[in-house]
């Protein structure tokens, strides 16, 4: 038992140890090669700046966070609706799927200047970019969940006299849930990328804007502090999505339930 528990502690500590080791190496490389701060600031310096400018970082983080989340939630709403339509109807599928793929192939950075022309600078293009970029994986996953229902299952329901809507409600939607929640983990990280890209290209607030303007002043340490802040937010949101996923679709994690 004791051995099992300490093993568990080691397992939980591993990511932190790996990160500490990485930062230590980074620090050593900076010291050993005497790298100038403008090129690559030492991690200790980045943390120093991080805490010195904590209030500014927090304010800008908040801007990035809410634009990301707003775009993300819009993407969930739109993605589920379109995913269900595409997954449930072969006709909609054949009509829209190629268009979606083409749309997804467009680099979203290219959209930001257009968005700026349409809606101006600031939060709006960030929300839209976050939405556009995180929309696709949600649609594809929801549609896949619906399209991969076992044909026998559909036969059973049809022979009971179920309507297509009933099949969708009783089988399609529950079955698509694990696919949806799995896609949210991917989508939230993409949403961050979207809003930060937009802030970098055409923003007047947010972490992306902060990094860009710090870079312009050759303040590399602040740029890295912004990078760290994005990483922390990204991991935190990913963790929230993973937790929601486990809570909502426990049946799909069968191994853990049996024990």
């Amino acid at each position: 038992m004791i051995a099992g528990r300490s093993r568990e502690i080691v397992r939980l500590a591993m990511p932190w140890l790996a990160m500490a080791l990485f930062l230590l190496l980074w620090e050593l490389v900076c010291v050993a090669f005497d790298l100038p701060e403008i090129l690559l600031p030492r991690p200790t310096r980045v943390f120093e700046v991080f805490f010195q400018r904590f209030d500014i970082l927090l304010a800008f983080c908040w801007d990035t966070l809410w634009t990301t989340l707003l775009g993300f939630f819009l993407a969930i709403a739109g993605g589920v609706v379109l995913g269900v339509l595409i997954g449930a109807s072969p006709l909609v599928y054949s009509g829209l799927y190629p268009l979606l793929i083409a749309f997804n192939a467009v680099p979203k950075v290219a959209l930001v200047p257009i968005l700026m022309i349409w809606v101006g600078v600031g939060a709006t293009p960030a929300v839209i970019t976050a939405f556009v970029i995180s929309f696709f994986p949600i649609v594809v996953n929801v549609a896949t969940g619906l399209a991969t229902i076992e044909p026998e299952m559909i036969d059973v329901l049809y022979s009971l006299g179920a309507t297509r809507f009933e099949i969708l409600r009783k089988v399609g939607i529950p079955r698509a849930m694990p696919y949806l929640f799995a896609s949210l983990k991917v989508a939230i990280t993409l949403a961050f990328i979207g809003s930060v890209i937009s802030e970098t290209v055409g923003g007047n607030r947010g972490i992306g804007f902060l990094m860009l303007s710090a870079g312009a002043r050759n303040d590399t340490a602040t740029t890295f502090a912004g990078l760290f802040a994005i990483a922390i937010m990204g991991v935190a949101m990913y963790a929230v999505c993973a937790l929601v996923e486990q809570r909502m679709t426990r049946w799909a994690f069968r191994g853990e339930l049996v024990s």
Partner: protein
Amino acid sequence: MTAGAFVELKAASLTYRLGKETTLALADATFGIGKGEFVAVVGPSGCGKSTIMKMVTGLLPATGGEVVVGGQRVTRPIKGVGMAFQNPTLMPWRTTLDNVLLPMEIVEPHKHRFRRHRAEYVERAMALLKTVGLADFADKYPWQLSGGMQQRSNLCRALIHEPEILMLDEPFGALDAFTREELWGVMQALWLEKRFTGVLVTHDLREAVYLADTVYVMSRRPGRVVMSRQIDLPRPRTLASTFEPAFVDIVHELRERIHHEHAA
């Protein structure tokens, strides 16, 4: 036999169309199934056995001839049918009990009574689960059950709404021999109690002879019914009866006929 049959196939055939190619899956099937009769359809693989099932239930309407169930010509999925496949197709997000109750949420008139009279339906489902020995597993999820138990719950789901016809497409095909033979007994007991009209598609000749009143042998694709054999062995049949000469003789006779088909 055909006169006054509950299910009638009159020169029924089915042609699949895939692009430009057409495949004749089933040619000219003519036979009748009496109400409350249990028939088995056997034949070489790919002979259109499952096609018969789909035709009778209307999932794939016949493209030639006609299929009549209860005096009505079948052109689209008919109601009041229970189905069980080799794959138990239980919903992993529902407990065994909720899986068994599924038809009650779809079939009239239960659909509209279900919410208000849930207790009554739960009682009914529990009684059914008890007859197949699953009463203690009602709250378990499908993946917590063995393959045999999953198939038992599948049978319960197919029977809960007391369908007039039960369609079984190799329901025991994926199970080990011991579980399979045990489930023959379960199936027979259910049929003796409820007397639904049963259609069993299988390639296991002993299974067919054990369960059926009449066994139909089909030819290779395009499938035709080449032999019909009454099984007048007394019921309930037991595993011991499968070793009796009368039983073994019928199995041999059927096997000969199918070998003949393979050789042809």
